């Protein structure tokens, strides 16, 4: 949970051009905090045709803080790591049908769509397999039925989830991008805004100079894998990988991205996938699906969805890209 002190620590990273010299190379105001298990930042850009005034900057900073608070509230409802969250209450409920709130309803709606778009690879019913990969529970031989195993019902008194006993949800693979898009909608009053949900980005960029975004390599080193040059527009940019969240269980390498076809950590040839798409939620689920699918199937999937661009790093170090990617490289 973020504290008031976290939020009060407004931070303008060295990578951001300060307003006095901002030739529209970047946003004017940045507020960030620790959230979602990582760093979350709200960047707001003022009118690109006018020099920022101090009053505008103060107001933008207050709005960025408010957006950060909303993100924190949504995260509190959706995290499986908080026992009091709506998601944890759903997972712990022994009943077959459980009433849920609007935020959880909305993201489960998106989860079902994401599963369809990724041919079943983005599956939010894999919590047991995820915990087994972490060595916390015994691995189950049961294979996922995906969204066929559960349903949403909407009624006059709210929505509810129906699912077989024991089926638990894990939104880790779909939540960050979805939350970033939702938070971006809160910044509609600003010409430009970026919601950085620990590396998954929702971007709305007004006309002016193109903005540049770096893609970290699998080692997270100081030299980026690539730099993307984005002109005015609306984008989602997300990266998934297996080289950071990685551990050993009984002498075997495991990671957090579960292949629903095997119920185990995905073991295809992609180590990291970055996708540039029309929204952060699409970029996030397609990046994860690409990693789980393996490079050959991933490139077919990404081209079918007509993403703006995608970069795949394979386990032998090769860098693959969809054809459209080249036009976005700086």
């Amino acid at each position: 949970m973020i504290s008031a002190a976290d939020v009060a620590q407004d931070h303008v990273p060295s990578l951001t051009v300060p307003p006095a010299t901002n030739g529209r190379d970047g946003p004017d105001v940045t507020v960030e905090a620790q959230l979602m298990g990582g760093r979350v930042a709200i960047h707001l850009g003022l009118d690109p045709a006018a020099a920022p005034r101090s009053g505008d900057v103060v107001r933008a900073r207050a709005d960025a803080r408010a957006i950060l608070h909303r993100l924190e509230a949504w995260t509190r409802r959706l995290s499986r790591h908080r026992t009091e969250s709506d998601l944890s209450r759903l997972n712990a409920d022994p009943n077959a049908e459980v009433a849920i709130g609007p935020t959880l309803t909305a993201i489960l709606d998106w989860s079902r769509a994401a599963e369809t778009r990724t041919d079943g690879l983005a599956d939010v019913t894999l919590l047991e397999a995820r915990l087994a990969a972490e060595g916390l529970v015994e691995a189950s031989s049961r294979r996922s039925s995906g969204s066929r195993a559960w349903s949403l019902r909407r009624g006059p008194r709210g929505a509810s989830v129906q699912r077989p006993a024991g089926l638990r949800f894990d939104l880790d693979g779909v939540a960050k991008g979805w939350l970033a898009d939702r938070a971006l909608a809160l910044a509609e009053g600003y010409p430009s805004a970026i919601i950085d949900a620990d590396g998954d980005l929702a971007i709305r960029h007004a006309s002016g100079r193109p903005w540049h975004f770096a893609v970290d390599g699998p080692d997270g080193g100081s030299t980026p894998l690539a730099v993307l040059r984005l002109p005015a527009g609306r984008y989602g940019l997300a990266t998934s990988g297996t080289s950071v969240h990685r551990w050993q269980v009984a002498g075997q390498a495991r990671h957090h991205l579960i292949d629903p076809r095997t119920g185990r950590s995905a073991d295809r040839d992609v180590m990291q996938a970055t996708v540039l798409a029309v929204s952060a939620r699409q970029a996030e689920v397609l990046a994860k699906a690409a990693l789980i699918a393996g490079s050959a199937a991933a490139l077919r999937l990404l081209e079918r969805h007509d993403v703006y661009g995608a970069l795949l790093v394979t386990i032998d170090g090769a860098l693959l890209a969809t054809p459209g990617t080249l036009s976005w490289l700086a």
Partner: protein
Amino acid sequence: MTERTRPAARATVTPKSRPDPGPLRLVAGVTGLAALSAIATAVIGGGSAAANGVGGQAVAAEAPGPSTPVQHVTRYVQLKPGQTAPPQATVTQQPAPPPRVVVVTTTHQSGLP
């Protein structure tokens, strides 16, 4: 072994009338020194142009003779701020520096520090 016989007319010239080779050797030596000096002047002149910051890509000097002044022809120069080009020099532009790229933020695997 071949033996040469001097012409009859020269047979009357006594050995004392033959020119002394010493002065000729001196003249040849002085001429050589002048040529070396001219070459050295050309080299030093070109070097000083570079030392003055006029970094010519090609600096040519005409072959000097013992009695002709050394002429430097500067064909291409790149100027630093405040420098002026030599007469008749062609000024070339340095390659433009790569455009400044300001990275707004980074996409990365979640959980990176």
